[in-house]
């Protein structure tokens, strides 16, 4: 479905990615892992054309994503939940959900059933929501575009434990439904049980790729330990 091959990305003169390889097959939940600053978010920015890759190929089904502007990439079927619970602060919850919606499986009712708080706060401005609610809104907004591949960048980072559980419950539901998902997250205890595959980045390179079961303590200590 998504195939990222040997991409190299620069921020101005400084190189951030030195050869990232990543693959997500239909129906798979893939975890992109690595310590802070190893290029996870840059990889995602490159996929979405926000920080275009200078070398390598990124294909999604039949689309060559490197040739498309960001909005066409989204239209091709990628949905992004950006890092840091990004929604549109001065618009209501409903507006956030509906404006960018595209027809499909996910409807307003289903999203509000998934996150009942969004229904309760439907007329409030997004900036008056708590951090956890904003994250739910960001996920809901991405779902409403009915992406074939959902990309979650640190969706549970910096949230209260109760809220994290609610978000993990949603992510497990995506897994049950066979929603193809690319997951960036650092909490191994949550990620490993549900991921079909893990890809680990180290200093802008893909250094490990395999099933979670094969992720032994040596690999963990080497690439994921703090």
């Amino acid at each position, binding site marked *: 479905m998504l195939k990222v091959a040997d991409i190299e990305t620069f921020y101005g003169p400084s190189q951030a990615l030195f050869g990232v390889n990543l693959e997500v097959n239909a129906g798979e939940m893939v975890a992109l892992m690595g310590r802070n600053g190893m290029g996870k978010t840059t990889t995602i920015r490159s996929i*979405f054309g*926000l920080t275009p890759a200078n070398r390598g190929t990124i294909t999604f089904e039949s689309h060559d994503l490197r040739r498309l*502007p*960001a*909005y*066409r*990439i*989204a*239209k091709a079927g990628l*949905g*992004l939940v*950006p890092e840091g619970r*990004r929604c*549109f*602060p*001065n*618009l*209501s919850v*409903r*507006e956030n959900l*509906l*404006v*960018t*919606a*595209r*027809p*499909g499986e996910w*409807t*307003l*009712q289903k999203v509000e059933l998934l996150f009942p708080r969004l229904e309760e706060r*439907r*007329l*409030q*401005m997004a900036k008056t929501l708590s951090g956890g609610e904003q994250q739910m809104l960001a996920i809901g*907004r*991405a779902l*409403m*575009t009915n992406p074939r591949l959902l990309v979650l960048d640190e969706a549970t980072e910096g949230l209260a434990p109760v809220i994290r559980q609610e978000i993990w419950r949603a992510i497990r539901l995506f897994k049950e439904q066979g929603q193809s998902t690319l997951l960036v997250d650092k909490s191994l205890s949550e990620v490993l049980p549900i991921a079909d595959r893990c890809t680990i980045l180290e200093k802008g390179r893909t250094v490990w790729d395999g099933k979670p079961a094969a992720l032994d303590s040596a690999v963990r200590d080497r690439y994921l330990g703090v």
Partner: protein
Amino acid sequence: MTNNTPLTNNTGLSKSAAPGVANSGLATQPDNHFDRKGLVQIVLLGLLFLVPVAAYFLGHIYYVNLASRITIIAMAAVGLNLAIGYGGMVSFGHAAYFGLGGYVAGISAYHAFNFTPFMTWPVNVPGSDSMLVVWLVAILVCALLALAIGAISLRTTGVYFIMITLAFAQMIYYFANSWPTYGGEDGLPIYLRNGLPGLDTNNALTYFLICFFGLVLAMAITSRLMKSRFGAALTMARLNDVRLATAGISPYPIRLVAFVISAVITGLAGALYADLNGFVSPTMLSWHFSGELMVIVILGGVGRLYGPLAGAVLFVMMETLLGGMTQYWQLFLGLVLLGVVLFAKHGVMGWLAGRERNE
């Protein structure tokens, strides 16, 4: 404030998902300032309506015409506010549309008055002294021009956008200034005000009411637009266009449509202005006027529905009252503008009516 009922289903909203299509029914947050804001708005609009009516029956035609002037300039600023305030597109060239609307009225009346055709090839196009024709042509001409200027300018942002819109407006200004057919820099008189069927447009009060209707219509269109799905997408494009793009909507066509609507509103105001003064000249196209419109929008409150009206009232009153006392009235305008920018960031409307959800 009628759209606060929650949607119980999303039919229509997710299906007719084409961006650029106005779509009603987006629930918004209830307004906390309704009472105070509503009061200020009613008083403002009520005064603008009642003062000239009273002045007319007391025989002070001067004040009726002054009110018409305020109304028209407010309407032009409503157009600019859609671009600057709601769309975040700081156009420094809206005089182009204002002047063009004015020239449409002037040129059309000129040919009608002299019984000469505007053009004979490929089809014979006579002049017209009907406001309906003038308005229709002004809408078309301004929309086409804004489409061309917007399509190019909106590829840039920030200071480049400001400069490009200014450059286009200056091109049109110098063209009008040096084209002798329609008076060049001397301008073009409209000897007889264009007419509307069934109305005496030469009557000052009737003409004021036409302008008032135009202003209210422009504000209603803006309000309706901003409550639609299109308006919410325009707000998203202003807040964060990258985030909007990653959700699958290109900000460019949304901005372009808003820019064109904005230009058309300002252009119609220009047509009314030329008919009010019985005169159109390159002054209407000059960058001074673009700047004045901007000052009015900022004075009144950027991105506020009633901001342009409040700004225009303040601006024209200062110009008239202070301008009568000293020729340096703009010094005081500058001080007021400084005060607004420093101490009342959301303009006169923000100061009088409280903050709004978009701030």
